């Protein structure tokens, strides 16, 4: 059906054309100005699903990265503490060897005992090392200190507060992925021993033995006990080292993942600047053409030629 063209249909058509070009221009300008291709879910529902998932993963990624930093701080605290503990044990061993020498006078044995007590105090302080107010050797408990001393008894009693006697302490974990956690503390009960079996009780028994009037030479027994602690601590220390390595790698992996996620997010929601500007140019040209054509088309009527 050939339509009859009247002034009104022509004007309506011209208005629609101008309006359409203007709407396209507006959309193109909006996209170029915001640099966003997706502003509401209906722009791209599938992309929205992706964006929401990516947003969630990015938030998790940021949190896991903070966890990694926190975990690294915990582990380096544990690591440096264990290094100092090993140094103290080496000194203790040297003193024990010295005490075993038969040439010691009572006064020098007393001096050695005093030095050993000083080392015990150091070790006790090290065992109660804290990071941001939390004990690094008390496991995941709320205990005020990892080890407490009761000096009212003779010899003093040492209690490990990290766990029930004989039980393993719950570990402090940091989450580095949805299904992976890394241990960031060390079990104080294993490192320092518990109760009568602790390194503190050992030092007490050595000092009380060598402070006696004519002590027998128990050097071999003591050295074996000290070596036992050193070996245990060495093992734990290497575990801490490998945990540090793991958390370090996790941190790197999180950074890589973050870069990828941001890239994916941008690919879904961001407009390509070059394309956006080109679209604005095209739409602007189309709009101007529509205006020019309309101005030309609607001006003359037959009236202009009838005189």
């Amino acid at each position, binding site marked *: *059906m050939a*339509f*009859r*063209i*009247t*002034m*009104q*249909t022509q004007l*309506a*058509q011209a208005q*629609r054309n101008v309006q359409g070009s203007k709407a396209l221009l507006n959309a193109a300008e909006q996209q170029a100005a915001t640099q966003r291709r*997706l502003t*509401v*879910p*209906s*722009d*791209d*529902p*599938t992309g*929205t*699903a992706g*964006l*929401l*998932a990516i*947003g*969630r993963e990015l*938030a*998790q990624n*940021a*949190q896991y990265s*903070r*966890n990694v930093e*926190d975990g690294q701080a915990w582990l380096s605290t544990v690591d440096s503490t264990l290094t100092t503990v090993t140094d103290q044990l080496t000194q203790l061993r040297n003193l024990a060897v010295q005490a075993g020498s038969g040439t010691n006078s009572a006064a020098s044995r007393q001096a050695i005992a005093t030095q050993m007590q000083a080392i015990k105090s150091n070790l006790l302080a090290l065992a109660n090392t804290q990071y*941001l*107010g*939390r004990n690094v050797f008390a*496991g*995941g*408990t*709320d205990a*005020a200190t990892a080890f407490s001393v009761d000096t009212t008894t003779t010899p003093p009693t040492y209690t490990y507060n990290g766990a029930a006697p004989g039980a393993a302490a*719950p*570990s*402090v*974990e*940091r*989450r580095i992925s*949805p299904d992976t*956690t890394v241990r960031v503390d060390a079990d104080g009960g294993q490192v320092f021993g518990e109760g009568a079996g602790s390194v503190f009780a050992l030092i007490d028994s050595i000092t009380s033995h060598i402070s006696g009037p004519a002590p027998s030479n128990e050097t071999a027994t003591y050295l074996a006990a000290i070596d036992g602690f050193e070996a245990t601590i060495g093992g734990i220390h290497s575990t801490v080292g490998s945990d540090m390595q793991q958390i370090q790698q996790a941190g790197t992996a999180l950074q890589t993942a973050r870069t990828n996620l941001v890239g994916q997010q941008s690919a879904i*929601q961001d407009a390509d600047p070059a394309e956006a500007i080109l679209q604005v140019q095209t739409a602007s040209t189309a709009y101007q053409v529509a205006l020019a054509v309309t101005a030309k088309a609607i001006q003359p*009527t*037959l*009236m202009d030629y*009838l005189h």
Partner: protein
Amino acid sequence: MGGTISSLQIAYSGLSAARLGIDVTGDNTANALTPGYVRQQVSTSPTAEPAQAGPTPSTAQSGSGVTVTGIGQQGSPLLDAQVRLADGAASASSARSQALAQIEATLAEPSATAVSGGLQSFWAAWQEVSNQPGDPAAASALIGQARALTDQIRTVYQGLQQQWAATYQDLAVGAQQLNADATGVAALNQSIRSATNAGGGAAALVVQRNNLLDQMASLAGVTVTYNADSTVDVHIGGTAIVQSTTVHQIAVAGATSMDGVEPPSDASPHLVWADLPGDAVASLDGGSLGGDISILGAQDAGGAIATTAHDLNTLATSLAGQVNAITVPAASATAPDGTAGTTGHAFFAVGSATAPAALTLQVVATGVSDIGVTGSGAAVGSAADQVSQIGAQPGSPDAAWSAAVVALGINAQTASQQSDLDGAAQTAAVNAQQSQESVDPDQESVNLVAYQQAYEANARVLSTMNTVLGDLMTLLQTN
């Protein structure tokens, strides 16, 4: 040859027909921009030659001039009906599309400041608490995030309530408008019938009636049938709202607030016949009223606003349920003075008999001493870590909300496409109607020239007859 007087009559009939033509052209031009005006055209036919008297017709006879048979409107009921049909569909889909776009704007997804972003920050805050279980600062940050999240949910829900109320208002006003239009159509039916019966023209009244009919079509997608007595009947879904001069008014029934359409009460707003309350207006799916009703419907009837509100309520309930399920059995952190942590601390409270979940969701935890962070027999902070992982689990509030947002996006996209299609169909229908019915100045100019020339030619005939008669008279006087 007829008598001289009849020759003058012929010339006069031509003159008056040409002058009527100029009048109609003038009327057309004057109403060129009047909405709903249908261009008119003079139709003429030759006047039959007078019957010959006498037994033997001798001379050949000319006709007796021109007769105006009528002033015809160039309207087409078919094109009008197509425009009304397209109007009804376009109004409905445009209302739906706009409503969905508004819901999208209310949700403001996807963004870090929307509910999805609030959930992400909330889970992250739990992770911080897991790292620093006894730290009051981490606990305060968590409670702050949780309050921000409940505020976001409440604000979005209130936005939906406002939209529902505004749409309902629109529906009520539209229904009144429809009743007023129906009354107007019935009154015009009466006037047009009287005018037609009296033999007069009713073009102006028909234009008025057409405008009302167009408005009714746009409101409720009505169909129009033309009766023999120049009146029209107007139907919605097969039942007459206007029958010749009788009007059946409509009224709005059903829930009057968004919470009223939440299942199980689900009495969606709908139209009923005012004289037969309880009798719903059947199959009203066209027009802006049809669009409004489908938007206002209950969630199980696919109402867009109630569906999103339902999603928000589900989010609030499942958020509170899943978080509390972990925090209630978990113990809070040991106080700095060594007091052991206690169990039984709900983090969220939700639900009441009268208000929807999204509005009642609130944070009941107040600080580090009443946030359950430690699972039984496990390390301090383990329960908090478990809570922080809820968001990543299948069946999480986040996953359900994402699905809801995506479903809304798909609906809005489909509605927008449908609206574009209906808009294009409406444009095409209006274009076809206008090309048939609208006035074109060029054509009127041509007609004007033609009628002017016809007038001049007939005047010429008249003056010729005058001269001929004058000659004859002079001849008689001189003899």
